[in-house]
């Protein structure tokens, strides 16, 4: 039945989506191979140190010394629509790390976010961290705050929370839009150490300008792997680098061929 359908062309690729799909499959294969090499201990990739991640630990330490809380904002992102999904997932794995540290140091942690669905997830992530640190009684569910789903109402709420609670460290990691600078400048007004990160290209400049450390685009997504040091996670980061080499090669070869008037590469990747 399947062969019939395939042979007589009931199903076909949508125009222009054959190559993207192939690329996805290639990534899967590269990842599988890397994982195999890691499992057999033949090759173990290492991840470059990210200064911003070390800064997170330092900032939590400073907050502890000053006896002031830590603020963590997951941002505007949700888990349903488009390209904020990966940033939210990445932010949640960093949150796990931050919550664990805060639990160990007995530093209050305030978590803010916009998408209501995160109420469940973020609360559980933080609760789990306190359980692991052996201090479940210190966990305060009311400190995981859904501000509201409206973008600027959310921003005003977070700005108010920052001014009232005066956190010594503020982490803004995830998907951010225009409120990036509103929240970051509010943090500056009270002199918090800020580590920010987003993959939203037109908000990165504001984080670079207003925060002490910035995780730029990809760094946000690999931070989770860097923290966990889990071989599977590091394996995907390595396959990401393999894909990067492929794309740089496609770009340079394509441009050189293009200089001679050959459009081979462009035609290939258009498929």
């Amino acid at each position, binding site marked *: 039945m399947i062969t019939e359908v395939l042979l007589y062309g009931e199903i076909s690729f*949508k*125009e*222009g989506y054959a190559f993207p799909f192939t690329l996805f499959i290639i990534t899967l294969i590269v990842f599988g191979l890397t994982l195999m090499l890691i499992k057999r201990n033949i090759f173990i990739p290492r991840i470059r140190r990210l200064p911003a991640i070390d800064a997170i630990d330092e900032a939590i330490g400073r907050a502890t010394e000053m006896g002031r809380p830590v603020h963590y904002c997951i941002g505007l992102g949700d888990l349903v*629509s*488009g*390209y904020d999904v990966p940033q939210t997932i990445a932010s949640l794995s960093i949150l796990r790390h931050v919550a664990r540290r805060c639990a160990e140091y007995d530093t209050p942690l305030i978590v803010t976010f916009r998408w209501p669905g995160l109420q469940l997830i973020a609360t559980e992530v933080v609760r789990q961290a306190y359980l692991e640190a052996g201090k479940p009684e210190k966990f305060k569910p009311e400190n995981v705050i859904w501000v509201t789903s409206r973008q*600027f109402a959310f921003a005003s709420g977070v700005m108010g929370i920052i001014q009232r609670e005066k956190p010594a460290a503020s982490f803004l990691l995830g998907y951010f*839009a*225009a409120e990036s600078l509103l929240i970051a400048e509010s943090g500056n*007004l009270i002199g918090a150490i800020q580590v920010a990160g987003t993959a939203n*290209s*037109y908000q990165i400049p504001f984080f670079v300008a207003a925060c002490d450390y910035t995780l730029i685009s990809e760094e946000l997504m690999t931070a989770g792997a860097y923290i966990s040091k889990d071989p599977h996670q590091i394996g995907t980061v390595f396959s990401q680098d393999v894909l990067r080499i492929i794309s740089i090669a496609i770009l340079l070869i394509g441009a050189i061929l293009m200089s001679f008037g050959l459009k081979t590469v462009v035609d290939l990747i258009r498929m």
Partner: protein
Amino acid sequence: MSEAIIRLQEVDPRILYLLMFIVISIPLLRPIGLPISISQETKSLYDFIEKNVKPGSVVVMDSDMSPSTAVECLPQFIAVTRHLAEKGARIIFIASRAVGVQFIEITMKEVFGGGPEHPDYGKKFVNLGYRPGGSVGLRSFAEDVYYMKTDVYGNDLTKLPIMEGVKNAADFTLYCVATGSAVDGYVMLITDPYGTPVGGLCTAVLASRVYPYWPEKVVGFLIGLRGGAEYELLIGKPGRAVAAMDAQSLGHMLIIVFVVLGNIGYFYSSRRRKQ
């Protein structure tokens, strides 16, 4: 004296805030009238419409505006609609977010002088209202224009003369979207599958993200208030955007002056530290 120069790098931000209020307010109450030149992004959208939009061409005007982005996008939306109406295009208004519908009504009133009661309604222009469902909804609309069934006033779409011969996104000459969030989705779901170019009516903040698509997929785009002012000048009808440009000039200059002062203070103090 030197202490004062060094302190230039740590002026209380509230002084800056107060000056900003003053500098923006004055030209709004008493305009100066500085000249404005036309940028290439604006010109390319204007040229595309001049060249490709014939009487009867179908153009979608998508209002993805919210009250906060409308300051920038509404003058653009009105100016482009005015241009399209002059060219005799069939204009389909649609809103990608619920709060965008009110701006379609304002635009219809300003350009055509009326809404659904206007004699040309349903012939020259139609208001489909809010299209829910984010990118999923956009995909359905692109596949089948009649997925909405009726316009916002309950008229059956299949019976309106304006929809004659329109099936899917491939039948549009241009898909203009006034937005402050992203054009990526429109390029992804309209241009890539159907080949219909996108015209961007963008807030200035979005501009840097539209450049990668320009001019291949987004044929032209207007950047913020200035884009609107330029388009108003291109079609020869200066409006609210032109008036606000003076305040823009002064606001920018204030920031530049403060950046320069901050650097003088920084430069001076770091030189003294070296000595």
